[in-house]
């Protein structure tokens, strides 16, 4: 980053660099690094408080990224495909926290598909980013479950199995915020990230993030060239934080639609497709399937439903985080023990 940005501070007095952590050790040109930059940039712009957010990941190239941002926030680089359960425990233990999780297509669609879907059923307050490149990078080029049918790779040969569509899986699992983007479109990634951070439950961002080393043949749907040529954007996005006055005039009123997020902030969708309504689950599924048949991938906010409460809302916990409750709240009295033991006599 240039020196101008490193000296500028945000509303809570933190500099851009305060949201960074270690330098990336991923391959030069990796799409994941671009996503990391957008995470840092959005957190800086929104003045996220580092102690109110945790960063999580599983295992793989993508999951290494958790070490590259939010150096002032606690985090956990967990086990392969198990970020959802560890994150669930942490967010129930302290429901004042929210999480940004980075995972990959192997971590989410292969080994972690079960935990991914059950996380979405439970609906924790987490932005779940899948840095999706269709390939196992860290073990040098095996197919993941999102690889294209019929795709050929030098190491792995031909893939004979249909890909898992993580946006489809997310919608079916009851997720209330499902978006897809492309790491080569930083503007859209940023706007989706901002909106996702305002969502009360789990927000899934499936970001096609080409692997420059093992999966960048131009005919792969996870390549830069393919992404640039074939991404069909559902809408132009503009996220408006709750503290800003919403200036709907900026957009052509006939073509924009505003979605209010639970904290009062808004996401303005400028529609390219006049008929697309992201709150219509059936339309979202239909759109994904149509795009698949046409060999396209659609980007933007595919589905939103803010009705479902998060797990911690369902649990209706005491306000103090469970992790910070004092002994007086955790250990009932000796009288309480006497009384309960009497019922066993």
């Amino acid at each position: 980053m240039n020196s101008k940005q490193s000296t500028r501070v945000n509303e809570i007095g933190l500099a851009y660099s305060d949201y960074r952590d270690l330098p990336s050790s991923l391959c030069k040109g990796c799409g994941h690094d671009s996503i990391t930059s957008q995470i840092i940039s959005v957190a800086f712009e929104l003045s996220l408080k580092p102690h109110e957010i945790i960063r999580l990941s599983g295992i793989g190239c993508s999951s290494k990224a958790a070490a590259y941002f939010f150096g002032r926030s606690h985090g956990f680089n967990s086990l392969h495909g198990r970020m959802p359960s560890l994150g669930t425990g942490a967010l129930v233990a302290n429901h004042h926290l929210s999480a940004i999780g980075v995972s990959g297509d192997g971590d989410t669609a292969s080994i972690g598909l079960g935990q991914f879907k059950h996380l979405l059923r439970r609906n924790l307050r987490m932005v779940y980013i899948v840095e999706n490149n269709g390939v196992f990078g860290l073990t040098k080029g095996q197919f993941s479950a999102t690889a294209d049918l019929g795709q050929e790779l030098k190491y792995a040969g031909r893939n004979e199995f249909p890909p898992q569509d993580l946006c489809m899986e997310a919608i079916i699992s009851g997720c209330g915020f499902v978006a897809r983007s492309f790491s080569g479109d930083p503007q859209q990634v940023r706007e989706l990230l901002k909106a996702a951070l305002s969502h009360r439950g789990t927000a899934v961002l499936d970001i096609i993030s080409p692997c420059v080393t093992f999966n960048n043949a131009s005919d792969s749907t996870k390549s830069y060239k393919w992404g640039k040529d074939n991404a069909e954007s559902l809408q132009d996005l503009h996220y408006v934080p709750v503290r800003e006055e919403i200036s709907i005039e900026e957009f052509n009123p006939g073509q924009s639609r505003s979605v209010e997020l639970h904290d009062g902030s808004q996401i303005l969708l400028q529609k390219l497709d006049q008929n697309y309504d992201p709150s219509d689950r059936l339309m979202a599924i239909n759109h994904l399937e149509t795009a698949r048949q046409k060999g396209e991938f659609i980007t933007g906010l595919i589905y939103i439903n803010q009705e479902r409460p998060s797990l911690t809302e369902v649990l209706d916990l005491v306000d103090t985080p469970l992790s910070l409750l004092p002994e007086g709240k955790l250990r009932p009295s000796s009288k309480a023990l006497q009384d309960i033991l009497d019922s066993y006599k």
Partner: protein
Amino acid sequence: MVNNFSIVVASTNGSGSLTANLILLRSLFLMGIPVSSKNIFPSNIQGLPTWYYIRLSSRGFEAHRKNAEVLVAFNRLTFGDDLANLPSGGICLRPDSWSDAPEREDVITYTVPVDAFLRDAGIRGKNRDYLSNMVYVGAIAQLLGIEFAAVEQSLGHHFEGKESLYKLNASMVSIAYHWVGDNTQKQDPFLVAPMDSNKDKLLITGNEAAALGAIFGGVSLASWYPITPATGLIDALSILLPKLRIDEESGKPTYAVIQAEDELSAIGMVIGAGWAGARAMTATSGPGISLMTEFASLGYFAEVPAVIWDVQRIGPSTGLPTRTAQGDVMSTYFLGHGDSQSILLFPATVAECFEFGYGAFDLAEELQTPVFVMSDLDLGMNTWMSDPFEYPKQPMKRGKVLSEEEVSEVGFSRFADLEGDGIPYRTLPGNRHPLSAYLGRGTGHNRDGKYSEKPADWEQNMERLTRKFETARELVPKPIVDEPDQARLGFLAYGSTLPAVEEARALLSDRSVPSGFMRIRALPFMKQVRDYLEHYDRVFVVELNRDGQMHMLLSMEYPDLAGKLISISRNDGLPFTAEQILEQVQINEPQI
């Protein structure tokens, strides 16, 4: 034959017989007679044979006995074997409608007109099965001399708040009780008489006691996946937590119970919550431990507190889900790949289930590592007598956690060993100090918690973990030792074999053979173990698994003493009897 015999009720599972059996057990308990029970049940919901043993022992012996003297035969399908298993001079109570039932001349048989009672009372449908169980409650109470008032009180305890059910059941008990009184001539010596042994005592399962202990230990998150025989522990939590852990000010819970999609996820949540600073636990059995291995290994290496109850059942594989064992000792002690060691606690009584229920959280947080509490089906699911549990004497030990202020003063390095005990300091998410943040990881790390592939970093970290394990030896519950003068033989055991070992020792003592006893309550071994082993000519290591797993661990830890250790290990899914232990002792000590 007063207050010293066993009753076995043979019935069909799913018929409601457990209710009837618990009422019998409680009636005897209320008469002040020391009682214990074994529920030998199938892995099935309805229709398979089940046996419930109640042992009365004026000396307070609680171990399993192979054959009961009193048979309540309410399952025609198993009657042939059940009758054959009765010792000579035993008695049998059965319905009178089994016209083709076998007989034994050396057994006294009583019959009751179950069908007639049900018909006369107008009982139909599924209530027939439930109420036919109440017939044997009334009939056996009359035959053995169980006070009717005690039976009524037990019925009242069981059907508290359900007046019409109480009346229905009590009336059937009464019909049978009085019919037997009027129509049956007692011809056997088995009788009960009131005693004064049970004042203030509880009647409770190990699983319930464990749940209570966890609640008084401040459990804040319990996540789990259903599995026999651990399910009852979480069921008890779900019943007791709303009674004990609602915040008075807000009226809201200070806990969360989450049913996970599998055991991987269950322990994942526990590790996540433990890392975030909450007291978190799960309960499972052997197959679940296998699935939890991956996260347990992370917990060991990333140094995250967690409490895992392993209510053991017989394995390997699915094994017998409703039969007991102590078969997970070796695998759990070394759980995980690479160099790995776990803290194991071995409760032997329901009181210890309570004590370890809260104590395990202290240990896990002090040591920042998963702690496994090795219960089993026998201890966890059977109903035991106990003195009331003692309220925790010490405040909670939350371990080395740095606040914002402390980080300001002394800084923070996640894996630095400042005190030389191998235990590092940690900070919790939510801490506002910028230096408090760190990224937990299962990958190699330096003392600051940053990823490192340097050989020295790896080695130093693993050496510190070894040091931490040495510290654990001083923190875990000490063994319980009983060393009578002149004892030449010693026993060493752990967990639920306690009643059988105690009874075997008492029987040896009756023959003027005193014996020592060390009951291990935790792994790793404390230094007292060596002292104990050195003191005896021979030490019998008693355990309920095929391979003698504790015997192997002792032999590894004390190779110089291994020659004097004799393994008494077996497992067929049933608890040890004192006789089985004595048999093995006599093989090795023929002069006894």
